[in-house]
């Protein structure tokens, strides 16, 4: 089968010799929602602009629906881009903005009007169709940009931080809209963001980038619970890292000597070398907080040796979420949260408790 979009050993070196993107490989299925996530300057926007055709590709092949498009200018690629600032034509009305792409294609006026009406209606822009976009709100402008891109029926929609310019309130609702729209249309979306919450919420797969390199490509949940590198572990989620030395390792179980004694973990990618330095990555969601009164035997039965005594500093109920701040014996602070139903009245601020986790809920990363 052919993929909608393929990046094969894509590299980009700027004119002054600095590499921007190094050996980027990715195959995207039709209808997938892909996010490029990383800190600023990691090369995610450059990659997106290479796909759109605004940046030249130094090495590697870029294929859209099986066809190599490295040398096609942006106007001849079946991609459409949503810019961070939306880049609407300020001197045209909303309708003229949306019609522009069809005019260029030479669509018959009647046909164009029908298509534009349909997309304006779908995105709830009918009422503002004859107004210039400069007078509209951020959310509306974003929808105009979407309409302008979608009306030309691109194979792939590229989005460069499309939620970045919106205020926090609006972001959540627009985020939902975007997700539902993508599911509805079934077009491939490639989305650049530096906000992990957006990437986690929206995408089918996330490409985490750092300093021009791909660190990990995984579905959101896997990325969150099974980071493959220390960078990802620190960048994504709220992980606690416990370092130590591998003492024993086999297919299903590894044991690690740490400041909290011997800890058990199920290695998820390969069997680590014995004696190697490694870290256990513990997602906040994997950590169970148990009252100090829990009998030791019950703890051992469920969590093996993965039990650490701790002190609770802070408990705060925000809505139905209980936010817990606690300190491990080595003084390291850990913040986590749970549904209020789960922890109802079992914990007291200032008191002692246990943290525990199941070996399969943590990840081992060798250094």
């Amino acid at each position, binding site marked *: 089968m052919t993929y909608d979009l393929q990046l094969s050993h894509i590299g980009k070196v700027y004119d002054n010799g600095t590499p921007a993107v190094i050996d980027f490989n990715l195959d995207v299925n039709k209808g997938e929602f892909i996010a490029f996530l990383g800190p600023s300057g990691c090369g995610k926007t450059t990659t997106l602009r290479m796909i*759109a055709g605004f940046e030249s590709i130094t090495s590697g092949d870029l294929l859209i629906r099986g066809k190599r498009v490295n040398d096609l*200018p*942006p*106007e001849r690629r079946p991609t459409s881009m949503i*810019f961070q600032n939306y*880049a609407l*034509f300020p001197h045209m009305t909303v309708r003229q903005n949306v019609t*522009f792409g069809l005019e260029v294609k030479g669509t018959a006026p009647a046909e164009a009007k029908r298509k534009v009406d349909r997309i304006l209606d779908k995105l709830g822009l009918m009422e503002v169709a004859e107004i210039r976009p400069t007078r509209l709100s951020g959310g509306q402008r974003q929808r105009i940009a979407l309409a302008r*891109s979608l009306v030309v029926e691109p194979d792939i929609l590229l989005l460069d931080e499309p939620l970045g310019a919106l205020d926090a309130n609006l972001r959540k609702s627009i985020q939902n809209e975007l997700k539902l729209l993508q599911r509805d249309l079934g077009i491939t979306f490639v989305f650049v963001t530096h906000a992990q919450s957006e990437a986690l919420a929206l995408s089918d797969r996330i490409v985490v980038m750092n300093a021009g390199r791909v660190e990990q490509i995984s579905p959101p949940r896997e990325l969150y619970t099974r980071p493959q590198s220390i960078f990802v572990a620190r960048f994504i989620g709220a992980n606690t890292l416990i370092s130590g030395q591998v003492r024993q390792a086999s297919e299903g179980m590894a044991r690690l000597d740490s400041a909290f004694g011997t800890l058990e973990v199920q290695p998820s990618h390969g069997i680590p070398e014995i004696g190697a330095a490694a870290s256990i990555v513990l997602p906040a969601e994997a950590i169970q907080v148990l009252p100090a009164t829990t009998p030791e035997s019950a703890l051992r039965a469920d969590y093996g040796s993965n039990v650490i005594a701790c002190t609770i500093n802070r408990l705060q109920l925000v809505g139905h979420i209980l936010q817990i701040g606690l300190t491990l014996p080595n003084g390291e602070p850990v913040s986590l949260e749970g549904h209020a139903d789960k922890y109802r009245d079992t914990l007291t601020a200032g008191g002692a408790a246990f943290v525990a986790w199941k070996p399969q809920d943590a990840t081992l990363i060798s250094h």
Partner: protein
Amino acid sequence: MSTTALSIEARQARVTRWLLLPGIIWMALFLVVPIAMIVYVSFWTQTTFNISPKPTLASWQQFFSSSTYVDSLWTTIRIWLIVLAATFAVGYPTALFVGLFVKSKTLSTVLLVICVIPFWTSFLIRVLAWRPMLGKEGAINIVLMKLHIIQQPIEVLLFTELSVIIGMTQIYCVFMVGPIAFMLARIDRNIIEAARDLGAGFGRIFWKIIFPLSLPGVVVGAIFVSVMVLGEFATSGALSGRKVNLLGNIIVTQVGSLKWAMASVVGVILTVVMGIVIAGFLRIVDLKREL
């Protein structure tokens, strides 16, 4: 309790009034009143050596019955239109290059500075410099003959209407380049990328996006050029050998011979022409909004 005190709003309004007052008074006294004066004096009675405020239409009748005067009105309008078109034609491509095509900010600043440097030479000397350029033995003829493009020197270059037009175009084209380049530089590059992304080629992007967005710059430039060309008298005086008489030239001669009333009539006509031109341009673009 300061309940009787002025509200914050009223206090701010008072500050605004005091800030504006000096400027308004200055402009009223030294701009509006003088122009009103021109209108007023144009109806005064003029004798050979004297002028008295007895109302009369004599000067007006004299203006419209003299073909020299009426011709100068048409000459002024013709030269204005030609110079306006020429400065636009010469200036727009330059502005396009400086404002849009040059990506490096430093280079575009350097180019703009290059355009502005001639302004540090006195305006009158710049006008004068065209004489050895255009003359029968001038630089242009010398260069063209050296290159064997022409055999005989071109004589229409100096002391004709053409020399006035060439001179004015060179002197005023920078006023076109500046505002247009400014508007072009303000265009968000992403907008042009978005248009390309939607499949548009350069021609369409230029006519549908770039040109409309630069229009306010064109209008501002056109206003600058119009104001200066319509009020010109020095360039035409120095380069036409007194063959081209603009309204400005007539005002100068009339004032020189102390014919204040006639000078005022011409002044009023110039004001009216100016008013129509500026009002026309401001209909295209709201100057206040573009700032």
